[in-house]
């Protein structure tokens, strides 16, 4: 049906059954992009039956093209968004959109939304904090990237000599509560679920060292301790009512301690990062927090405001004039 519709548009467009004017081409591109986006969203929804959502995002949406056996078969999410953005800029310049203020607002808001998303993709950092009860943690872990770290036990547990980021097997991540730590004793080593890895040169020389394949860690200038994890269900049922973690943040720079409760729908904002209650494990002995750092966090809010006002003004015009 959508293909049928595309065909119709292409025919009308090239046969010039409608009065051709300068703005026609940008309108044609807009509609093509929107229909392409619709197809892309539909296909990526269906793809989630068989594929992991993260994989769908990487192969279809957060990419320039969808590749199939080395051939680009369909434009990816980034291409469509950029095409819409460029096309919108051209049409605003050429058509003098600014005469109709509500329409201008809607389109500018939309452009800002795309820009905000691009900035987020470029600059935002996401990681996870896995907290075990009464253990102090001063690093967050990546949800997708692995690293191979050399740890020198002779001078403290957290002393990392070198770590290498691994980008392979990114979607093959085991649950957070299983350690990926292994001790070195031959030229190759096995890590369960991750295959066999060759030994890295020179590691044997470190007698007291341990090599560890784990989620990529980012160390923070503060540490967090899980005091308790609270899990409530609605009485007489299995329906979860609320999750929350009571934590203590000890800041090494300012030498202060703070007690906070993070629960679903009420995150903690701290040092430019936001901590959300994400998950729990081990019957509440382990709590997982999602840590997000995005400087452009407020952009989508601004663009939504602009679009909402534009659409509302526009609807009054439509209802008054019927067009």
């Amino acid at each position: 049906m959508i293909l049928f519709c595309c065909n119709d548009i292409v025919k009308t467009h090239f046969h010039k059954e409608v009065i051709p004017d300068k703005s026609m081409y940008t309108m044609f591109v807009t509609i093509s992009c929107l229909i392409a986006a619709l197809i892309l969203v539909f296909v990526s929804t269906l793809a989630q039956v068989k594929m992991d959502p993260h994989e769908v995002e990487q192969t279809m949406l957060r990419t320039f093209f969808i590749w199939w056996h080395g051939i680009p078969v369909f434009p990816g999410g980034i291409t469509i968004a950029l095409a819409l953005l460029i096309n919108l800029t051209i049409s605003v310049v050429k058509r003098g959109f600014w005469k109709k203020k509500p329409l201008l607002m809607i389109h500018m808001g939309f452009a800002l939304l795309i820009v905000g998303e691009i900035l987020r993709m470029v600059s935002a950092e996401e990681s996870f904090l896995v907290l075990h009860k009464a253990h102090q943690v001063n690093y967050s872990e990546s949800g997708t990237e692995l690293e191979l770290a050399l740890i020198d036990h002779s001078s403290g547990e957290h002393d990392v000599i070198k770590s290498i980021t691994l980008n392979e097997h990114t979607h093959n991540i085991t649950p957070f509560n299983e350690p990926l730590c292994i001790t070195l004793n031959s030229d190759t080593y096995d890590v369960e679920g991750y295959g066999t890895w060759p030994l890295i040169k020179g590691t044997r020389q470190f007698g007291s060292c341990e090599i560890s394949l784990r989620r990529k860690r980012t160390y923070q200038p503060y540490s967090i301790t899980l005091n308790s994890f609270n899990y409530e269900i609605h009485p007489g049922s299995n329906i979860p009512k609320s999750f929350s973690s009571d934590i203590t943040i000890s800041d090494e720079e300012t030498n202060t301690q703070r007690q906070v409760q993070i629960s679903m729908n009420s995150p903690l904002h701290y040092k430019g990062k936001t901590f959300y209650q994400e998950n729990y494990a081990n019957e509440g002995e382990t709590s997982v927090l999602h840590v997000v750092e995005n400087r452009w966090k407020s952009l989508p809010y601004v663009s939504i405001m602009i679009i909402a006002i534009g659409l509302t003004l526009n609807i009054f015009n439509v209802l008054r004039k019927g067009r």
Partner: protein
Amino acid sequence: MKYLLIISLLLFPFLLQESSPPGAILPVQDQGRIKPLDTVARTSRVMISGKEGSAPSEWLLQLLFAPQTTMNQKMILNTYPDIFPEKYLSINQLLPHLNSIYSQITNVPTEEDLYQESLVQLWKRIELYLRLTHTLHDDKQTPLTPYFGITPPHDFDSDAHWKNIEEDKTGWKPFIQSWPNISEPVDQYLEEISSANPSLVRSLKIELFFNTIAPFFISKIYYLIALILFTFLTLFDKKTWPATYFLIAAFCLHTLGIILRMVIEGRPPVTNLYSSALFVGWGAILCALMLSKKYSSLQPVASLIGLLTLSISYSLSLSGDTLEMMRAVLDSNFWLSLHVITITLGYSATFLAGFLSAYALLFSKEIKSTATLVYRIISLALLLSFIGTLLGGIWADQSWGRFWGWDPKENGALMIVLWNTVILHLRVGGYIKAVGILRLAVFGNVITSFSWFGVNMLGVGLHSYGFIEQAFLWLIVFDVLNLLIICKPVRIEQSS
């Protein structure tokens, strides 16, 4: 005369109100909520028999207090004709076979087929039935736990845990002793509750009232009558006001039902798929009634939407209590209620545009003026669905730290936004005219039905439960019908 009609239509359900036995109001705790026994009776009866049947409260009271007398009642819907040919079975017939059924369902291979599935369904019914019989009779021999909690804490706090018979053997003793004449102890019990927690008694009474007047059932019938009247009155060129009054009466009852649900639950109108079906229909009809002064064709369309959405919500209600507790993820939050209401109204507007267009295309009637109206409704739908979708993003950002996650439900909403945008741009660009707008608006039905129900069925291969499979079939039928309407040729002179 006209006013008399509408008043009598509105009063009719109150006259029809069933009387409930004295025990029906007894509070119990089930699925995290304190509800009258009557609600449990209705939902468990539906789950066991596949339909509500008459006098569910009497049935449940009998089952609770005197299980032996109900052992031979043929109540349990049989989905597994291999053991018994009958459609309904009694528990006495099934008891000798329990072991064999249980061993068959516990050895289910990972790839469940329909045959196994129906056995699992039968087992679930038997299990529910047996758990109900254990509500007042603590039976050490069975591993099944009682179905609901009956003994409240001393302060009758609705959020605390209410003990079941295993935890507190004295529960409901006065009623058990005086059964079957329990009206006096029930009154005493209610007085006791109202002195400690008066709001609980009030909400029990409201819920019982809601159950006995069955507003959605009556309003569904009114929508049906309105639709039939519209068809015949238009066919014979008569004035259609009686149909209009049925439609208005149906809408009033529909509204009353939604308000009562909100009062009972203390939540915004949309909390689960069932209530979204109620609200999608309600929103579309509200919009249609507001615009119907100028466009008379909106009224039959509104009746059809009412009939369809209430039928959908009825089939959704077959799986249990529709007043569910909210999961932690969805609990509270201003953004969420705003988001859900707006997006659901967006579905309403898109459906209204789609149904109206389908009507105009089918009867080749008033194509041009309908197209103008449809264009307006689509603009409204875009406003609602866009803002609704983005409000969902704000909410997700605030509680999960991500604005957008490409979740199937989010994608569905985005598809509606995109489709409405496509239609508006096509029209502004001059690619489509009246008939084109109507056809594309009908396709909006297909997209909305996908994002409303289709995405919930994506896992069809994995969990092919009876309802979902049937619903999937209906979804396909609906989509095919819409596609047929799109392809229907419309005479050119009307489209010019």
